[in-house]
């Protein structure tokens, strides 16, 4: 959003006014809200759950379209419309995974996550919301890595967090390239198991 970040009360009051105008028929007034929360939804909610930038953009656009389309069904509950849009986005993420025929456990885990509000679901400041979403994403990855065999966690850190080439990862772990590939494969499988159990 352009301009100064409003404090929570002022931000919520402004949002509520805009939503009421949109519900009265002037959908264009939702634009500032979409521009305020679009980046947070993209990088904090959708992309970390899809992994693919193009799919994430499609989901964000569909989420915004759904928000415009269904604005009359939104009921003000004293908190930001962000959390309503986040719920729409989560459902669309699940749809993408279902369409791609991803594992039932992944879809179930996402559905369970979508069913509960994120902690501190009372912010109206997009910077604080973004920080909170980052914390959620990094926290669940870190918790899963901590629960894994340290060797597997290391393989994932080297390859996906530090983004080292495979040869460098293999050298750092003191194994051949082929062995590293197998280790990494087992690491991601192990991650899936722990991550979905969480």
């Amino acid at each position: 959003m352009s301009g100064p970040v409003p404090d929570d009360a002022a931000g919520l009051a402004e949002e509520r006014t805009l939503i009421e105008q949109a519900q009265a028929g002037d959908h264009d007034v939702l634009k500032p809200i979409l521009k305020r929360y679009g980046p947070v939804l993209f990088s904090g909610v959708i992309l970390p759950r899809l992994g693919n930038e193009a799919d994430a953009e499609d989901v964000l656009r569909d989420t915004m379209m759904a928000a415009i389309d269904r604005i009359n069904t939104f009921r003000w509950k004293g908190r930001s419309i962000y959390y309503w849009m986040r719920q729409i986005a989560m459902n669309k993420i699940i749809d993408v995974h279902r369409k791609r025929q991803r594992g039932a456990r992944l879809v179930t885990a996402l559905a369970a996550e979508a069913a509960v509000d994120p902690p501190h679901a009372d912010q109206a400041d997009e910077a604080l919301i973004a920080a909170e979403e980052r914390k959620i994403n990094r926290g669940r990855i870190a918790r899963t890595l901590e629960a894994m065999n340290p060797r597997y966690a290391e393989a994932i850190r080297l390859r996906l967090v530090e983004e080292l080439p495979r040869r460098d990862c293999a050298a750092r772990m003191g194994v051949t390239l082929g062995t590293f590939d197998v280790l990494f494969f087992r690491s991601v499988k192990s991650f899936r198991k722990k991550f979905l159990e969480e």
Partner: protein
Amino acid sequence: MSEDRKDDKLQQELERLGEPAADAEEIAAAERLAARLEGALHVVGPVDDDDVSTLAMALRSGGRDTDPGDAATDRALAEIFADSDPSEGEPPADDLEQRRADALAAGVDRMIAGVQPADTPADVQELLCLAAMIRVSAHAMPMSPGRLETLVDQAYGTKAPAAAEPPAQGRTFTLGRLALAAALSAVVVGGALVMGGYLGPKRMVSTEQHLPTHLTSRSTRDILPGAFPRTQTAAERIDLIYHDRLRSFREVHLGGQRQPRRARRKR
């Protein structure tokens, strides 16, 4: 034997083997899996898709003479039931696991390089998706303001009678492409009608005879240029339709249609 007594016996046997007790959910899952292994067509209750696909893949990899007790099946069962985090040592990888590891490694290479993923085996796709999720969670990947602006405009494009946006660089928009594809089809059909009126029915029939079938205009309802692979995204499918229509349009107007006309004039 009643269900309760059967369960009691099961728990006693597990205890004798030094195994932890099984809860009702685990017993039900084990029974469903056992039924699947015995070839039951209808298994009551859900069976974990991942486990069944892992097992099926391992059985297929074992060849025609696969025996349920062979190494591939043992490995699959170990994958399903055992803790996949061995604290010491690593079991050797068989051919199947090596192939899957290679596919995942190649997929991650492409992902980090920002290249569209190639056709990845179905059983590796979910792992690749998880790898991508880990990666993007570890790195801040903000959206550019220009891209956001475009997506917002596009979200409104279908809601309000706004002017059509020009295609964005790189990936153009789904709805914009659909509209453009429809417009191109209309132009082709309109052009054909005008030509038909100008040249007369005989000329029109003659032109169509020289036009390859794959370049002829199709109904806007017939938007499928062939079977789409399941791995294709919606945007990729729209790309395909768009390019298919555009190519037909160009060849009809700039090449395919003029050539026969000149040939006829010579005659």
